């Protein structure tokens, strides 16, 4: 078969191994803005560099910073636990709510687009703005949400969510749910609408009930989508910074001091950059481990389902 001249030429270029050449600029950019700083962070983590303390000019200190993190820094581990709690609770509720809303929307044929647009609004707001909105709503004096929580007797007159160490984390979780449930809904809905119709019609013909269809068909078919959303949301929640920073600054006490806030504090308040690099690297490592474990669990389930 004779290719047109131009197509043949381009095929020859690719055949001669010129492809990678075209990818090089993108790779270089990636190296400069991702790989470079990452390697630099690792290198920094073995130094005593501090912008605050004199004579801490980046001398090599071996694993001292890592030792300090593991053995002598209860605040870091407190933040780690707080972050895990935040991720599990917030993402868990977002997944359930997002799925249920998507289910309702998938079965709603009238004005689905209009309702979906409304549902998506919180997701489109910048996280800093969400933090500010949340702060205003939960303000102890004139916050609208505070007013209704008191009016319904859910919260005492002398209680304010963001000032109460037991309620502050719930407030942060609540606002995260408000912001990110629409994302879960959107992806789940797209997944549901893309499912083939035939198996569902066959199930209905066979007399399967709604719950049965949901449990035995919708959920298994949506598993890859659910896995993807769960992974994306977990990673994102693990890095949460903006909203918490605006809402509570990590307080009261250490109630909402997530790892990202703690890492920021060490780096940009204490300017303890060697140790701050260890904290940042640990956050990366934890996310990496969680992701790989999670990915393995999902893919194993998929393989089992294929059998």
């Amino acid at each position, binding site marked *: 078969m004779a290719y047109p001249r131009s197509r043949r030429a381009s095929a020859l270029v690719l055949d001669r191994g010129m492809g990678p050449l075209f990818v090089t600029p993108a790779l270089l950019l990636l190296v400069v803005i991702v790989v470079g700083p990452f390697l630099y962070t690792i290198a920094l983590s073995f130094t005593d560099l501090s*912008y605050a303390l004199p004579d801490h000019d980046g001398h090599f200190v071996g694993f001292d910073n890592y030792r300090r993190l593991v053995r002598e820094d209860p605040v870091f581990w407190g933040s780690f636990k707080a972050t895990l709690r935040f991720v599990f609770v917030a993402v868990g509720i977002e997944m359930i709510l997002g799925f249920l809303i998507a289910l309702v929307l998938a079965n709603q044929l009238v004005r689905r687009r209009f309702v979906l647009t409304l549902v998506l609004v919180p997701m489109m707001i910048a996280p800093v703005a969400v933090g500010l909105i949340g702060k205003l709503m939960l303000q102890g004096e004139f916050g609208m949400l505070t007013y209704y929580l008191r009016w319904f007797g859910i919260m005492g007159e002398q209680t304010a969510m963001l000032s109460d160490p037991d309620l502050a984390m719930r407030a942060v979780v609540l606002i995260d749910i408000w912001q990110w449930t629409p994302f879960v809904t959107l992806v789940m809905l797209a997944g549901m609408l893309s499912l083939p119709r035939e198996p569902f019609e066959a199930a209905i013909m066979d007399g399967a009930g709604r719950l049965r269809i949901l449990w035995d068909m919708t959920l298994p078919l949506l598993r890859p989508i659910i896995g993807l959303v769960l992974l994306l949301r977990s990673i994102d929640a693990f890095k949460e910074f903006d909203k918490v920073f605006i809402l509570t600054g990590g307080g009261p006490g250490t109630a909402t001091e997530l790892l990202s806030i703690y890492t920021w504090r060490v780096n940009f308040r204490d300017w303890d950059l060697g140790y701050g690099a260890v904290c940042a690297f640990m956050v990366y490592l934890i996310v990496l481990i969680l992701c790989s474990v999670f990915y393995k669990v999902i893919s194993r389930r998929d393989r089992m389902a294929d059998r």
Partner: protein
Amino acid sequence: MDTLLSTRFRRRWRGGALALSLVLTLACSGKKDREAPRPEPATGSQAARPGVWTLEGAAAPYRGVTLRAIGESLPPLEAMAKLATQFEQQTGIKVEVEMYEHSEAVSKVMLDLNSHRGRYDFILQPHRELGRFVKNGHLKEVKSFMDNPALRDPSFKPEEQLFQRQWKEISWYDGKVYGFPFTALTMYLWYRKDLFEDPKERAGFKAKYGYEMKVPTTWKEYTDLAAFFHRPSERFYGTAIQGKRHEALWYEWLNFLYSFGGDMMETQTGSSCGPIIVNSPEAVASLDYYKSLIAYSPPDTLNYFWDDVMALMQQGKVFELLMWTDATYAVEDPKQSKVSGKMAFDLTPQDKGGKVGQIEGWSYLIPTDSKNPEAAYLFIQWMMGFERQRTQHLNGGSSARPDVYADPSVKALSYSKASVDTFAVARPKPTIPESPQITEILVRELSLALTGKKTSKEALDTAAAEMSKLLGACAPMKYPVN
């Protein structure tokens, strides 16, 4: 030389990498740096005639220069920016001012100083940062400028014209002068004069407490007033503490600490290190007392910092609190405040520590990498002049010049006397390189104590241990932790 170059290169790269990290990870400042073209200084001979110093003459070699400065976005800086146009008309030296929120103003300066970019010709920074700037070689001593007859205005005599204790704490380090006070700050008592003078309230108070209502000089009287006026059902509160996990909390607690006879370290000046006494019985008592005021504060008080309590006061929702000198202007400004003309100000109540306040302030400083240090000095010196200081003070500043407070227009301000009285008894706080970290440690522990997660003793013991570890041999714990 090689070593110097390589160190500089490393620092530049680190600064750049950090700046990149900051942008990539936070990406929330929303303020873009502008790189304006920087005209070369005009050449030519010194215009001043021998024996006659003039600003125009001294500034002639720098005509056309643009100075870039950075500071906290508050009325004193806005006033300075307005005054700078007069300086430009007189000298041809332009001054561009970048204004940021407190923490951001500090962070941006740290990055600039460490990257050695020299973006700022002079900086305005809180004095707790002084030690780490000086010890890391980021600041120029201003003595060389002061000793230069071509630059020194003969009428500028800071040794006579400034509050000496304030100047030496805010702008000196290890006996060397690095700048001049941009603001001389302190905190004192604010209360509602209209309610205090209301005969009905006075009668009610006497009936309840058995003595005449008076300006509180003890913490018992302060509590009585807070308790009496605390009417949460009317959304009116006896007091409001700045309990958010923020440096405002530390600053506020220092008033109680000093008043109860405690301190953080046993030192005479901010630039020296000494035994840790932050967990002394006096310090624990001060924190216990501070915590007791939550009962008379708004429900959200543990999420308030200075802006929040200021807003509450301006809305007329609080009877009394402790607040900053440079915020007083805004509470007495009828355009911003419902309680303008209804306020009174006085010394902080006393305990074992007697009459006491805290020294605080922002300084004009010239970075080592400043591209126009002489022109910057000329501007700073000009700003320290009486007329500029008076204008800045009347527009929300807090001058370090005693003669400004003696001026009739300033004397007439309701808060002038309280400022001067408190300056006279104000105490220094650490300015050593570790002081910002000490602040962070204490803010965390104070916040934990306020939320009830730790007792006052536990929180201060932890703080003492961490501070001692941070400072090393120069700071043993005077009250060992079990």
